[in-house]
């Protein structure tokens, strides 16, 4: 089956109507030396069947999904996705639609955006949320830029305990925007130390649970940082059972939304969460849907506050973002709708409980102990008596995958591994994992 539906007869009719005799003449406006320079890719055209076969062959070189149980984390987790989620995503009216610039024929997308924004506000406790950014890492970078715009300063204090990918992206954006990043150390309890903060900060950035898995205690931080903005990067599922950052006076909350019903897909596409307080709306990047009425008084939704965005403000826009992660936000919305408040709390509790269960079992092994006493959600770090890469290898051989221990060296932690557990990991898996760990 072709993708170009134009028949030969229609092609000839159209060429004739515009006074041309061949398709090549449509390129008469491109200088000949450019056309002559073109080199083919050396690609034959494959049938659908052949493309499918190619992918099957590639799939065979990806044993990770079927033959291994994942204890990997770092912001990306293996949670169960209810079947209703891929069903809704498969509706081509959602999947193949454009950005809802024509609201009258986009009430589906716009209503879902409004629902997503509401749910993110519920999770984070914040007053407004946008309809998504690319991922949690660029969301944190955008929050840093936003804080600089609001405070007109260029210095930011940031916790050392960010996930590796997030830290790298933040560093790149900070270099480009000429922002001075000052690192905040990790204390003996595994939590970020907020003493001795430098002056003239536009913001303080912290991740909770942090890159060591520890849940931060941010009470009192907002009072200690002058008028700098408090920016918190969160794990959305954890917020079903942990008090949201709004309670400690967070000004901006960001996070990686992948755990909310997205597949892991080797790291993308992801879902950037971004929420803030109403007083900062003019500075917030990203699209927002708002409720309003039509000429007949019916309620409906439309994109609003568009004067922040690039298509109106151009170089003075709050961000350059145009395409976001809309369909992933829809997935998250349907995921949260299908679980409801209770279901989300259940997933969070089950993930936390299994993680604590595994941690307790591992601590029975001699030489293995929690690295930090601070509380954790579904991800924790344990000290190991030998080379962590040996553990990593042994687990792999046993059919288990954990994050690369080198992530931890970046945090100044040696001889340790980080492990994440979700509600999908069975008792049997936890038992076998412990056994393999012990034998290593």
């Amino acid at each position, binding site marked *: 089956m072709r993708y170009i539906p134009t028949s030969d007869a229609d092609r000839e009719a159209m060429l004739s109507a515009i006074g041309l005799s061949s398709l090549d003449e449509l390129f008469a406006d491109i200088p000949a030396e450019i056309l002559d320079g073109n080199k083919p890719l050396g690609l034959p055209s494959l049938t659908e069947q052949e493309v499918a076969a190619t992918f099957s062959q590639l799939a065979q070189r990806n044993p990770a999904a079927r033959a291994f149980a994942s204890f990997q984390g770092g912001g990306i987790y293996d949670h169960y996705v209810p079947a209703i989620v891929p069903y809704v995503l498969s509706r081509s009216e959602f999947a193949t639609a454009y950005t809802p610039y024509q609201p009258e024929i986009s009430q589906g997308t716009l209503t879902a955006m409004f629902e997503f924004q509401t749910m993110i506000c519920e999770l984070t406790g914040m007053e407004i949320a946008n309809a998504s950014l690319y991922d949690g890492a660029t969301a944190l970078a955008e929050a840093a830029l936003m804080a600089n715009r609001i405070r007109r300063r260029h210095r930011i204090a940031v916790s050392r305990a960010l996930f590796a990918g997030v830290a790298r992206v933040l560093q790149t954006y900070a270099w480009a925007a000429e922002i001075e990043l000052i690192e905040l150390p990790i204390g003996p309890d595994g939590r970020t130390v907020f003493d001795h903060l430098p002056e003239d900060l536009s913001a303080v950035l912290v991740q909770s649970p942090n890159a060591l898995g520890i849940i931060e205690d941010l009470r009192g931080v907002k009072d200690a940082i002058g008028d700098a903005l408090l920016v918190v990067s969160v794990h959305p599922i954890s917020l079903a059972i942990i008090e949201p950052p709004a309670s400690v006076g967070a000004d901006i909350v960001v996070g990686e939304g992948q755990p909310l019903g997205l597949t892991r897909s080797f790291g993308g596409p992801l879902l950037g969460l971004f929420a803030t307080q109403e007083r900062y709306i*003019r500075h917030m990047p990203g699209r927002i849907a708002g409720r309003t009425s039509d000429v007949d008084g019916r309620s409906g939704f439309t994109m609003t506050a*568009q*004067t922040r965005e690039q298509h*109106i*403000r151009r170089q*003075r826009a709050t961000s350059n973002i145009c395409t976001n992660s809309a369909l992933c936000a829809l997935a998250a919305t349907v995921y949260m709708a299908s679980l409801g408040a209770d279901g989300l709390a259940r997933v969070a509790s089950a993930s936390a409980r299994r993680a604590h269960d595994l941690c307790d079992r591992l601590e029975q092994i001699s030489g293995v102990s929690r690295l930090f006493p601070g509380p954790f959600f579904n991800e924790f770090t344990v000290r190991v008596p030998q080379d962590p890469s040996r553990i990593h290898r042994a687990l792999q051989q046993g059919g288990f995958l954990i994050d690369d221990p080198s992530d931890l060296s970046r945090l100044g932690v040696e001889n340790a591994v980080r492990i994440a557990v979700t509600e999908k990991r069975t008792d049997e898996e936890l038992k076998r994992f412990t056994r393999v760990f012990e034998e290593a």
Partner: protein
Amino acid sequence: MTYPTDYRYTKDHEWIHVEGNRAKIGITDHAQAKLGDVVFVELPTAGTQLTAGDALGTVESVKAVGDVFAPIAGVIVEVNDALEAAPDTVNKDPHGEGWIAVIEFTDAGQLDGLMDAAAYEDFCNQ
């Protein structure tokens, strides 16, 4: 559109009403009509020093943003806070209650290049 004859006008569609060494500034009827329904006015802060041509704020409609430029150097001494709750005043009464800020200036000579009401109407009709 009638333009007050005791006001002066800029090419960027601001009006200035001088009283002593203070100039009240707003955007003209022509400007508000072009922008459409005003939804937000970004006001300057009192005490801000400006040179002629500096942007002192913006007026936003649903689909556009217009800068408001200082026609003369000086310091902002008053700001129309009422526009925060009622930005549509700029549409309803652009030359009166829709004023944006008052600048206290020292060099009256900078006002010389500005248009009077008749010249401004001609300028708009070009």
